[in-house]
Structure formats: C-alpha cells, structure tokens
C-alpha cells in the first residue's frame, strides 16, 4: 500500500489495555490552566519509567463547571490503583499548587476513584464539602461532591471522585525517513492532525518518540531497551528492519479511551505524515505478546 508515494508496511501496531482517567483543570486564565496541566503531565511519557502516561488532550473543552478557561488531561496507568495514586500525586503536587486552579472529573464511568476525598486532608480540618444535585451540574448522573480546600490564594476546588475506565495504551506507528529533518516534519504533521481526535493523547515530548523501545534487555535490571531493529546506526550490527536509505526513525505513541479512538488517531496521523521527507510507515509489534489490541495498518487505512 502507498499513500502519496509513501510505502505503508503490512504490519500491525500492538497496544495493551490500561486504565484511564480524565481531568479537567480550570484557572483564572487559559495560560494558568495550561501551566497547571503541563506541570501535571510532566514526566508522564511512558509507564515503563514514569508510572503512567499522561498528556493534554488536543481538543479543548467547550464548557467547564465554573465557566473559566479549562484544559483536559488524560492519564493512563496499568491498574485502577495506579491511576488513583498518580492522580492524587499529580493533582496534589501540580494542580493544587498552581495559582487559581480547580480540578474536576471529566470522565463519566461506572468505576470511581476517591481523589478529592484524599486530597481534602490538606485542608487540615478546614476543608468544606459541597454536593451539587445533578439538576445543577447538568450531567444527569447523580450528585457531584466537591471539596473546597483552603489555600493561600483563596480555595482549591477538587472533585471528590474521578471516573476510571479501561482504555488502550501503546498504539503506535513509525515514520521512516532518509534524514531527521524531513522525518520530524512528517511526524509534526501527524501530531497536528491527531490532536483533533477526541479521547486520545500522544504522551511523549511534542507527541513524538525518538527512543522507541523493545521488550527486554541484555541487562537483567532493565525490562525495556532501545528498539535496535529500527536504529539506523545499528543496521549492520543487528537484524535490522530498516530498508536501505533510511537514516532516521521516529515513533508516535497513542493512548486512547477506546480502541476506536486510537485507530482513528492512527489513521489521520498516518495520512498526514505521508508526504515529503517520509519514506515508509511501519509500526511496533512484539509478536502479539504485549497486548490484545492489534491495529493493522492496511486495514485501518482502508476503512477510513
């Protein structure tokens, strides 16, 4: 298969199940909401080393509970407990500390995690609970409880419980180019298009990974190591997957609330990437051992 002269490898991206939460951060201005969100998403690129994958969702929320500017953040981890721990740590350390911020649940899910209910203790006994009827919040799914925690600029509002649901992490595709500059431009085009898809994040810096990994390592203390098969500098030293002429490879990793969202993001991303500077599109799979979600590139692109 070819798109705009770019060859699409007949392979599949292998993704695994994860648990997801979605947080809506508001503040007195868009700039401060973004500041809090960026801080919360910091060091949240890969579950391999960060404990979770977290990033700002591309589509901005149209409406927020307090009618202030807001930013939506998605967080993925390997268990509900891990989602809870990461949300408590990151909201407590990065959102609560940001001036004028407030933090709300933005994921309607059956399973709920106590987040504000834990963070409230920062109020040292002066925290105040407010429970709003569903008629007031307009979501029609029962009352929502918020905690008002006294802080030095007024009060920090955080929702008592946050929804958690099963999602997909590790969707990916690889851009193979003759040199870095053109490959990076292709990846940037892909990211710009993928950010218009709701329910997905690309958690790596700018959405792009240059150090894609494989499972395992020759060192016992590491469970992941450099994806040597796609390192151009090792073409002669290892069993390489790279065709002649490829001098740079970049990966885009996608986490999504649903497999459909991940598939859609991959589809629009690959289409946008296919252009000058990119020779071939491939994907990372581990022989089906990593996860149950397989996104076959040809199938994806034929569907849309």
């Amino acid at each position, binding site marked *: 298969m070819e798109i705009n002269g770019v060859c699409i490898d007949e392979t599949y991206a292998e993704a695994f199940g994860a648990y997801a939460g979605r947080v809506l951060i508001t503040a007195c201005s868009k700039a401060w909401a973004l500041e809090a969100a960026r801080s919360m998403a910091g060091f949240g690129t890969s579950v391999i080393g960060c404990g979770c994958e977290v990033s700002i969702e591309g589509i901005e929320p149209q409406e927020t509970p307090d*009618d202030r500017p807001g930013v939506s953040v998605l967080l993925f981890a390997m268990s509900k407990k891990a989602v809870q721990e990461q949300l408590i740590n990151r909201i407590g350390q990065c959102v609560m500390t940001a001036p004028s911020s407030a933090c709300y649940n933005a994921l309607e899910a059956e399973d709920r995690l106590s987040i504000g209910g834990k963070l409230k203790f920062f109020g040292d006994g002066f925290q105040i609970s407010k429970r709003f*009827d569903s008629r007031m919040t307009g979501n029609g799914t029962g009352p929502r409880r918020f905690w008002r925690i006294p802080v030095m600029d*007024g009060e920090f509002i955080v929702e008592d419980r946050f929804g958690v649901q099963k999602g997909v992490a590790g969707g990916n595709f690889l851009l193979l180019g003759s040199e870095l500059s053109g490959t990076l431009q292709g990846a940037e085009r892909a990211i710009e298009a993928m950010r218009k898809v709701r329910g997905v994040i690309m958690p790596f810096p700018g959405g792009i990974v240059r150090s894609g990994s494989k499972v395992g390592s020759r060192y016992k203390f590491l469970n992941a190591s450099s994806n040597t098969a796609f390192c151009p500098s090792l073409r002669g030293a290892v069993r390489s997957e790279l065709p002649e002429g490829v001098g740079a490879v970049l990966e885009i990793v996608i986490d999504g609330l649903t497999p459909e969202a991940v598939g859609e993001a991959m589809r629009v991303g690959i289409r946008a990437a296919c252009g000058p500077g990119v020779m071939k599109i491939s994907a990372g799979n581990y022989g089906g051992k990593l996860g149950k979600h397989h996104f076959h590139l040809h199938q994806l692109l034929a569907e849309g």
Partner: protein
Amino acid sequence: MSPVVLHTKEIPTNIPLEAESISPDLFVERSQAEIEAMPVALGNESHRLGDFFKVEGERSDEIIIEGCAGRVKWIGSGMTRGRVVVRGDAGMHAGSYMRGGEILIEGNADDFLGVEMQGGLIRVTGNARHRVGAAYRGSKYGMQGGIIIVGGNVGHEVGAYMRRGLIVIKGNAEDFLGAMMTNGTICLFGQAGIRTGGGMQKGTIVCLRPVDLLPTFAYDCTYAPVFLRMLFKGLTQLGVEPPVPTNGLVRRYHGDLADVGKGEILIAA
C-alpha cells in the same frame, strides 16, 4: 402518561385537610376510583379524597392540583418520584420528608415546606412561611438533600438544623435564617432578618445584600471563591438567574463562634 388532575372542591370548615395520600408514589398504580377512595383526614374524621377533589385521570406519577390548596397539608410528603404541580397555594408540610421528584407550587407555600427532605426539587413561585427545609421540633437534622427554590419571601428559621442540600430564596428572609445548621447551602438574594446563622456549626449562607451579623461571627477576607461560580452556574441551570455577576467578590465571615464555628456567611462585597 397523562397527569392526574385534582380539582379542589369547597372545604366546608376552616380545619385543614390532612392529605398525605396526594403523592405520585401512591397515584402511579391506582385507578381513578381507587384515587378517589384514598383516605384523608379532616380533624379527627376520616374522609375520601374524592370528597374534596374532583379527580380526572389515573395511574400517573404526575399530579396537577387545580385551584387553591392553601388548607391542604402534606402534599407530596415523602414522595420519591414524579411531579406535583399546585396551581395555587399549598398548605403546611408540602414536600416534607421528600426523597425525589419535583413539586412546583404556583402560589404561596405555608409553614414547614420541604422539612427534613432528603432529595428532589421544590419550587415555589410566591412566598413560603416559616421553617422551610428545617427540622421538626425534636429532630436532630433538617433538610438532608435536595433543592428548595422560593421565588418570594420566607419566614423565620428557614434552614434551621439543615444538614445538606440547597435553599435559594429570591426575596427576603425573616429571622434566624440557617440557625443551628450543620451543613448545606442557603442562598439569599434579598434582605435577611436578625441572627442569621445563629448557632450554625458548618454550612454556607450566601447573602447578596448586607447583613447585620451576630458578634460571634469573625471576618476572614474579601475574595472571589470559585465555588460561588459553580453555585451560580448551577442556579442558572435551574432557571434561577443570580442578580449579581458570578465573578463578584464576597466578604467571608466564619462562625458561629459560640458553637463549632466552621460555618461561613458570604456577603456580596
């Protein structure tokens, strides 16, 4: 499901009619004849509902009372579902112990409106009298959930011993608003009487006009709490337009320091 319409007939005495049976939970599975046969009390005499109301319709969880029911007590008491519309005044105890559903009173409500309610929504377009959303004498807690919106004025001790939920008063309140409240939110657009929040332990009273506070309330600061933006947005969802901008500043006082002192009175600055 078309509503059951109750047309009020003349009540022969000044004695109020005790009509706990006017509830969507009880009407929803009853035929017209069964509704007419439901018991009501006039003083110490038992009567049929049909003696005082002309009943139209059956098996519905929506009830419309046409005409003045100012002497009909306990309308919608303990209801958990459905809707009651009173096209006129409603008597004492309307919506007391209510747990769900909605009551709309297109007139005035008498004392004890929504007392000890746990959920649901009560709207009154006119005035309501004393102890709206409060506790009955001897009870530990008043309203424990739900929303009461009064379009006009209210009487004394509104929200007394309130534990949870929201009371919105568009008009004025008489004395002891939110007295002894242990939690919940009262939002007063008009003028408050004396001793607002007297004995309150926790909870929030938002006053959009100046209030003469008890000396057992201490000033904290003037600020713009985000919580108020959420509250006012929620009120807008309910069709209640707050008369001040949602980003307005408030003066925060905490008290009652003669008790726990964790309540707050927010007064528009």
